Every structure is written in structure tokens, then in C-alpha cells.
């Protein structure tokens, strides 16, 4: 049975308009309600304006957050009410699920390789772009291109690039294989090689966006600092260590934090590229599968909470360490 476009679009469009109108009306309502109780106009305005966010925070953040914590202690398949089973999901995760530790290791390794390598690469390119060169706009455009591509297209493209029998990479490596008398590498299906393959793909994807951010950070460094360093007779290297790096450190810090959070949550690429079962799956994909393929919503919630704790701990670590290496201009110490 084919559903017409009209049938799919119209009801949603009506509800979309209704909810939008409802939000605006409730903002106006809140304003007059607050004014009725003699609240100052500025305060009434403020609360009325942030009302959409307050509603969103309660419905899309606070309630689901608490609810998923509760669900992580239950068995829940969405057809029957959740059943409290205590810590069983967590016990299963750490001791019984044979795919949990491989999946965790995979995700962590991916982040541990992808973030620093990507960061170093984009700092290098940003430094090159920051030199007095011609055609900066063109270079910047080229490097940024992969970042606008849908992750799904990136994944398919690299799966094809790494295809064992006919991908560009193995074609190019053919002479090497002949020389060493070895079989073509299997990249995404070889447990030892899927990590490098994923890291190369990941770097290709984010590298441009990071470079553009870092370049903007470099351009923000006041020229006077370099001039002062020149007067002191600083060499290129010591200017880099004592001026560029400290001044760039807040931008590096930003990229590091967003990089860690993003890499640990890799989903689309991982979803499009099947890897051997024994190697595990990236955590986000595992959570998706547990919930939406197997109907283990309780166990999936426990896994999600584990991922949250890992992300929070790592971010906290980076934030703590930032006092040692991130330099904020005008900061009171």
C-alpha cells in the first residue's frame, strides 16, 4: 500500500503549526499572568521569553534523564510496564555480556586515536594556512568540504574506498602486495585493521572543521605579541612555544572537549559499516541495537548511563588538566 505524500505531510504540518502557536500563546499567557501578580515587566518578559526553553528542558532533558536512570534498573520491552530488577542490567553488562568489553574497548580506542591524531593534524594544517600564502579562501574551502558531507555518505564512500577486492586503496597498494607476496588487506573486516580504517575515515571527516576553528583562533592572536617576541630576538620555534601555543590553547581545549564527546558517540559511520561480531560494536550502535532491534530498553538504558559516566569522567579530566595548560588572557589568578 502506498501512502500519498499529502497524507503524510498534512497531519504533521497541522500539529506543527498548532504546537508552534500554542507555545507562543502560552508565552503571552505567562506574561499577562505574571503582570497580573504585579511582577516587574522586565522579569515577566524574561520568563515569558525563555518559556519555550523551560518547557523543552523539562520535557526533553530533565524527565527523560531521570526516567532513563530509573529504566536502567528495570527490565522493559515497551509492551509491559518496566519491572524493577535492581542492579542486574549492570551485572550483565560488566560480567555476562561477551560483547560489552570489546565494544567499550573499541569505542575508547577509537576516541584515543582519533582525537589526538586529528587535533595534531589540524593544528599543523592551520599553522600552514596561517602563513602568508596565496589563495587562503580556496584552501580553506577544500579542507572544509568533508565536514559538510552527510556522515552516511562519508561512511559509504570510505567503505567503497577500503573495499578489499576493488577499492581504490587496495588497488593502489597492489604493487606492495605483489612485492611482499601477501594477500590484499581486508580493512573493515579485519579485526586488527578496522581501527586504522575508522581513524582514517574519522580524520578525513572532521579534520576540515577543526582546522577552520583553529585557524580562526590563530588569526585572533594579536600581532603585537609576535612583534614583541621579534624584538626580544625569539626564533620561530620559541615564538611557537611561547606565543602561539599558549594563545591557541583555549581553542585547542574546545576542540579537545568536543572531539572526545563526539568520537565516543560515533554512530552513523559505525552503523553503515559492518564489522566482525567478535570485535564488538561502537557503544552508541550497541545501545541502539539493544533497544530498537532486541527490545531490551532497560539494558540499553544501563549502557547509555555507562557511556554518560565515561564521557563525564573524561571531560572532567580534561577540564581539571586545563588549569595546567590552557591560558586565558585577562584571567585573574
Amino acid at each position, binding site marked *: 500500500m502506498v501512502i500519498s505524500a499529502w497524507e503524510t*505531510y498534512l497531519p504533521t504540518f497541522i500539529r506543527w503549526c498548532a504546537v508552534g502557536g500554542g507555545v507562543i500563546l502560552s508565552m503571552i499567557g505567562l506574561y499577562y499572568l505574571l503582570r497580573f501578580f504585579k511582577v516587574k515587566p522586565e522579569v515577566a518578559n524574561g520568563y515569558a521569553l*525563555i518559556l519555550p526553553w523551560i518547557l523543552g528542558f523539562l520535557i526533553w532533558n530533565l524527565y527523560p534523564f531521570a526516567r532513563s536512570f530509573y529504566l536502567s534498573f528495570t527490565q522493559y520491552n515497551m509492551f509491559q510496564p518496566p519491572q524493577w530488577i535492581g542492579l542486574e542490567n549492570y551485572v550483565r553488562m560488566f560480567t555476562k555480556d561477551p560483547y560489552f568489553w570489546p565494544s567499550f574497548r573499541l569505542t575508547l580506542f577509537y576516541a584515543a586515536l582519533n582525537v589526538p591524531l586529528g587535533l595534531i593534524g589540524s593544528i599543523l594544517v592551520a599553522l600552514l594556512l596561517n602563513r602568508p600564502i596565496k589563495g587562503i579562501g580556496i584552501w580553506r574551502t577544500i579542507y572544509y568540504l568533508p565536514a559538510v558531507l552527510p556522515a552516511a*555518505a562519508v561512511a559509504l564512500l570510505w567503505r567503497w574506498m577500503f573495499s578489499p577486492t576493488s577499492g581504490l586503496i587496495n588497488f593502489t597498494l597492489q604493487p606492495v602486495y605483489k612485492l611482499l607476496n601477501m594477500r590484499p588487506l581486508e580493512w573493515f573486516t579485519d579485526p586488527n585493521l578496522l581501527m586504522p580504517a575508522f581513524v582514517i575515515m574519522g580524520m578525513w571527516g572532521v579534520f576540515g572543521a577543526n582546522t577552520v576553528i583553529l585557524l580562526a583562533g590563530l588569526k585572533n592572536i594579536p600581532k603585537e605579541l609576535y612583534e614583541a617576541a621579534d624584538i626580544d630576538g625569539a626564533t620561530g620555534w620559541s615564538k611557537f612555544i611561547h606565543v602561539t601555543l599558549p594563545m591557541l590553547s583555549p581553542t585547542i581545549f574546545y576542540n579537545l572537549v568536543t572531539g572526545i564527546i563526539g568520537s565516543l558517540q560515533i554512530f552513523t559511520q559505525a552503523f553503515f559499516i559492518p564489522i566482525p561480531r567478535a570485535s564488538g560494536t561502537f557503544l552508541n550502535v550497541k545501545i*541502539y541495537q539493544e533497544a530498537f532491534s532486541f527490545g531490551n530498553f532497560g539494558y540499553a538504558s544501563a549502557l547509555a548511563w555507562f557511556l554518560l559516566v565515561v564521557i563525564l569522567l573524561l571531560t572532567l579530566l580534561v577540564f581539571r588538566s586545563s588549569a595546567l595548560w590552557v591560558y586565558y588572557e585577562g584571567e585573574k589568578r
Partner: protein
Amino acid sequence: MTSISLPATATTQKTQFGMRGRRTLADLITYILLALFSLFVLIPFFYMFSTSLKPESQLFEWPIRWIPDPIMWENYVRAFQELSRIAPGLDFWRILGNTLFITILAMVAELVAVTIVAYGFARFRFPGRDVFFILMLSTMMLPGIITLIPIFVIWRNLGLIDTYDPLVTGIWLGGGAWAVFLLRQFLLSIPKEIEEAAIIDGANTFQIYYKIMLPLIKPALLALGVLIFQGNWNNFMGPLIYLNTPVKFPMVVALKFFQESLSKEAPKWHYMMAMSTVMAAPILALFFAAQRYFIEGLTVGAVKG
């Protein structure tokens, strides 16, 4: 730059020459490295496009034919014909309609919600404002997967699974924290005297917002608009979870569906690459047209934040 401004006396000329020599060498290395990096970036793009135009027999040919012969523009038509064969009713125009419907409605809702909220945070003093703001920033840290299951249950209880509502209607409530943050930073840089003058003239909040604030933040809105458009166009997890009927699929999920159905047969990489190209083309076109806004939106939060 400095080497030009040096006075041309005998002694400095020598150093100038030496420096220029080193400079040219450094420039040369810079250009070589930049070119190498751009090859790393561009070759996959070209490979994607080249594959999409190949006849099936040339897919596995070595040496690689970068410019296929004959050039199979038909692949683009056939890929979508193949898809409609697997999923009746899901043709190119339907997919485009689905994708645009989701992308545009989500973008409009997000832009409206976000400007309103950011305006509230940036321009009014009220008790609890800073606490709310910090709460909002902290939600950015929250991995989306944590809240996904309960939110899915909410939509399920509303009977709206397999509709576009979870992807477009819920956005009215709040919009993205990151976008609010970015706009608030922008609003803070606009002097307050402008509004004060309008208040003296007797304008109300809505008039100030609509007539004064919106025109002033237009560049920021454009920057946000393109990034939000891109985010929704490329979004995969949302439509994957909420939509079940193939005719409702947007581009990305249709691609996944196509890939899965084909994996049982021979992998038709030329069709797959044709569809990837079609999916990427509008975003690439938007990027070329509005590049300045992409880069602005990306760097505001990172560098000034």
C-alpha cells in the same frame, strides 16, 4: 611582509637575500604540504563522483578509469528506479519532498524558538537567569542517547511513531542549547542603548524584537540557519528510529535502506555512489553559496566563547 619594508643598505641586503631564500623554501614546502593534504581531501570526492558515472563492468577495473567511458549519467536515474522497485512509491521526488519537509519545518521551528529564548537570556534580568543558563549549557554535554529511549516512549504514547512529528514538532520546545548559546553571545554584542531608545518611544517587547533585534542579528541567523539546515539534512539517527514506512524515508535513511536491500544481491557501488552524490550535492551547493556563514557559525562559539 617584513622583508619588503627593510631598508636596502648593503648589510641588510645580504640578510634580506638570505631570509628571502629561506622564505621561498619555506613557502615551497608549505604549498607542497597544502597540496598533499588537499589531495587526501579531494581524491575520495572525485572517486565517489567518478564511480557514480561508471558502467558496472568498469567498477572493478585496474588501472582505475578516472573518467569512465562511456559516462553513464543514466546511473542517477537507474539508482532511483532500482530503489522504487524495492520500495514502491519511494521515488526521487518523494525522497526529496520528505527530506525538505523535515529539514525546513525543523529549521523554522528551531530558528524561531532559539531567537526568542536567546533574546530572553541576553536582554532581561530576572531571578534564576544565570542558573537557568548554566543548566542549559550543561545539557550540551549530555549524550543524546541517554534521553533517546524515554523520548521515544513519549512519542509512542502520543501515537506519533512513524510520523514526522518527533523530528519537527518537538523542536518548538526550546531548540538546541548550542544555537541559543551562539545567538546570545551575538546579542550581547549589540549595544543596549538601541532598545532603550525604542522603549522611550513606547515600543513593546514584540516590536523591539521584531523591528530592531531581528534585523540586527540577521547575519547570525543566516549562519545558524545554514548549520541547522545541514544538521537536519544529514541527520540519520532520528529518522532511523522514528520512521518505519519506506515511502516516508528522507534521503539518508533511504540510502541505508537501499544499501541493506542490495547487500543481498551484488553491491552496486555505482548506484550507491550516485545516491551519495545526490545526497551530498545540495549541501555542497549550499556550502559554496553561503560559505562565509558556515565558517562564521562554526567559529563564533569556539573562539569567542
